[in-house]
């Protein structure tokens, strides 16, 4: 992963998060999700601090560990005429 792309992604995640906090309902739902973990909203800052420290090597290491064929399931949705299970 190119370092510049990773930096753009980090910025994107950070500002995307901030832009969602544009109304009380969204703020309450967002903050509650983080506060529930460690009883402090500081978790939000730690989360985005963690993002900021990631390097391309971290991304590659994790991708090689998890995004592998052994972990892949593929579901294909197809249309078969006259077997749609329509309600009678």
């Amino acid at each position: 992963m190119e370092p510049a792309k990773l930096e753009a992604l980090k910025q994107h995640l950070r500002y995307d998060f901030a832009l969602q906090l544009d109304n009380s309902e969204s703020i309450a739902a967002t903050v509650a999700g983080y506060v529930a973990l460690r009883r402090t909203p500081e978790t939000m800052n730690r989360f985005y601090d963690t993002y900021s420290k990631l390097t391309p090597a971290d991304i590659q290491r994790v991708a090689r560990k998890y995004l592998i064929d052994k972990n892949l399931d593929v579901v294909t949705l197809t249309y078969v005429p006259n077997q749609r299970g329509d309600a009678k």
Partner: protein
Amino acid sequence: MTWRSLWLMTAACVAAATVHAQPKVVELPGKSPLVTIRLVFATGAASDPSGKPGVAALTAQLLGNGGTKTLTYKQITDALYPMAAGIDAYSDKEMTTLVGQTHIDNLEKFYALMRDAVLNPGWREGDFTRVRDDQVNALRVSLRGNNDEELGKEVLYNLIYSGHPYGHENMGTAAALEKMTVSDLQAFYRQHYTQANLIVGLAGGYPAGFAARVKKDFAALPAGPADRFDLPRPAALTHNQATLVEKDTRSVAWSLGFPISLKRGDPDFAALLVAQSWFGQHRESGGELYNRMRELRGLNYGDYAYIEYFPRGMFQFQPDPDLARHQQIFQIWIRPVEPPNAVFALRLAMFELDKLVKSGISQPDFEKTRSFLSKYVNILTKTKSAELGYAIDSAYYGMQDYNEYLKASLAKLTVDDVNRAVKKYLHADRLQIVGIAKDAAGLKAALVSDAATPMHYNSAKPQDILDEDKTVEVWPTGLKPEDLKIVPVGTVFEN
């Protein structure tokens, strides 16, 4: 940025909107680090040149999704990505909107992109072809192919406004779009993207002097003229009429309605809004139509009523702002029903509308609905972007802040005001009816026949419902064979 500063983003002070002279600037300054920019031009499909339906919408799409003189579209999307920002463009009959939101950290970079998108468009042939093909596909694939409910609503509007400046789909027709050229869009842009048509909206914690700079930048647009919407009254029906769009689809979607001589800001608006909300508040479970059709009978997923244009309602709970119109319709939206119950569903909606017109609403229902609306109006403007959009609409309609206006109007209302407005503006006959159905011929035969069309239940129902059904299943549709036409879906919005 700390969590506290994130939280403080929404602690923006709510100031009364300030409106400047041409180009008009509507300001909602505050302390939020989020800044919204709305550029609303008072032009749209009602100003499409003859023979070129869809020009206004396509011009907006090219500005919002194309390159500028100095940057390609790819360079713009690459620049927007780290900001997590974007420019959304949408166009209606009288308004065309470009809107974006950014964090204050990126305001200068974002504003420069948005400014140039409108003031210095690139008009590249490749961008034009991409957005034109996208608009054709939106008509043929998304609307005609995959969204029977929106299709019914849009066909209804087209029929009600036949021969009227509102009388074509905002996106135009596939044939007109395929013949369109970049120069058609440039001609529309030169004539309609004027200072006189522009309302600039700014909300959030933008710095001192920013509004003046924006105003000065957009003074580069031609001064005028402003679009004029001297709209004729839509043709009145003398009796019910129906159009069935024939399509290979599993269910039947209905939309029905008629024009009303009432818009936001008119003296009876709040009164009719109470009646509409009680009858069929959008995507809420309290409406009468919803209760009688879904809750008591399990006919479908929901049934609602409207007195203002509300596109994309299947995807959202609150309407987008900046869809202001000088003419509106009353509309009933019956979500898809199973074909065997399609005629019963339509008859039930007509029966309920007839009850509303004849009997009005009760004092307790009036109190309950008024209370609901006086709170719900705050939900409509829960984001600064929406609040700014409503402020722009109020500037366009020439009225005060919408929330204050509605709350003040509701506080003064009586149930008699509501029922007087119902009698004055609503009627249960002279309906324009649109159905989307596979067996259009069979549906037509049932609609023009006097034969009963009973509801088919999968479970036992209370006797009072079954008794009422005996009335509903033979409720007159008011349709004769000559009042009902069948249209193949492939021809809709094609030419």
